[in-house]
């Protein structure tokens, strides 16, 4: 029971922190100002070269997901 309450509190705090960050510190960036953000290294997805690393982590670790890789299913992995 206590564990469930702690879990719910954790998700609530996660959402609250995310909301605060998104709503209080964002500035609107025009397309012509996005030269730094458009750099290939700034992409918010995993690199293509990391594909197999994500795969072996899915097999060798009990947790998966939230990283663009497998979350379970499609393989005999965890």
């Amino acid at each position, binding site marked *: 029971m206590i564990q469930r309450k702690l879990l719910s509190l954790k998700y609530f705090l996660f959402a609250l922190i995310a909301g605060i960050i998104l709503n209080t510190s964002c500035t609107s960036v025009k397309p012509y100002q996005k030269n730094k953000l458009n750099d290939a290294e700034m992409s918010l997805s995993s690199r293509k070269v990391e594909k*197999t690393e994500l795969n072996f982590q899915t097999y060798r670790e009990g947790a998966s997901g939230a990283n663009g890789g497998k979350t379970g299913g499609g393989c*005999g992995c965890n």
Partner: protein
Amino acid sequence: MRKLTLAAIGMYLGILSAFSQNNTSGSFYKPRKLQFEEANFVSSYYHQDGNNSAVTGGMGSEKLTDLSNSIDLTISVYDKRYRKHSFIFDLGIDHYTSASSDMIDPHTISSASHADTRIYPSLNWTRENEKKGTTFGAGVSYSNEFDYQSIGANINFAQKTKDKNGEFSAKLQAYLDKVRLVYPTELRPANNGGGGEGDENHYASTPRNSFSGDVAWSQIINQRLQLMIDGELIYQSGYLGLPFHRVYFNDATVHVENLPSTRLKIPLGLRANYFLSDKFIIRTWYRNYHDDWGINSNAVQLETSVKINPFFSITPFYRYYQQSAVKYFAPYQEHTVADEFYTSNYDLSKFNSNFFGAGFRIAPPKGVFNIQQINALEVRVGHYKRSDGLNSNIVSLSLKFK
């Protein structure tokens, strides 16, 4: 007078042609033929070793090598309403050899189970309305190896904000899999396959289904910082263990691993990338995970892209991971007959791990090796070390064609 009139007409025509050169927004040309966008080839070599093999009840060699190759191809076309349709075809082929899989039949020096090949193609389609900032998509996938077949499907949606600084995305995915019940030879029922060459059809199969929903929000914070929050909910049902994993009880009897037939997973992730300067970019990722088998875990990755020049960068990285054990885990000969569910798979035990390495990326304007079509080359090497003694090394190569 005639000269003056001609001069006036000439000036008038000149003014008209000057205005006719203006392009209004939305009237620029978009190709209506299928166009090649890009292709990516990724190849990697993975080698691991440890001493807690699940096939032999939590002890024994975990030596394994895996050679993995994949290629993905993206082509696109615009329709009459200027919406961009993209088709992404992906094909992967993995070949692995495993000392522990070889112990499914412990009475042979080397059996057919010591190696296997997995083939996994997928096809995805997206339709993007660049004006409205909306994207719809769908995809199918297939995977086949000797003891595991999978059919998957997904649908997805994304919507950008009006100022194109934020984007909400959602994805629903399902995998309908079949596990071939290849038990350890000494535990096989009388009607289960003999395991020899040509006996493939004698193994029974059982389903494993996975359903997931993923929502994410990406946001530009300022000209140097952007981040993404990602949350998933995954539900699995069916045969969720592996039939060739042994478990030794404290009374010296041996059993096949037995895990619950349902599992609920909740990973939450956060990515933040920061353009520190023209020379340094910092990439970070954090994930918190919880499931109803008892695993709570945290993972954090930090990567720095060091730009030696605009076309060459070095990327050192470090990843730390920790997890608690599933409720059903116990080491070799520590399970009892009173346990309803039991496993000695150390991938589900309590451990922490460190994964570190570096890579480099080359993207010269004239193409890699002066071949214009090879847009970029990336190489990455990593060492993975788990607290229970498992170690592995991986080297990967990626080529981007445009």
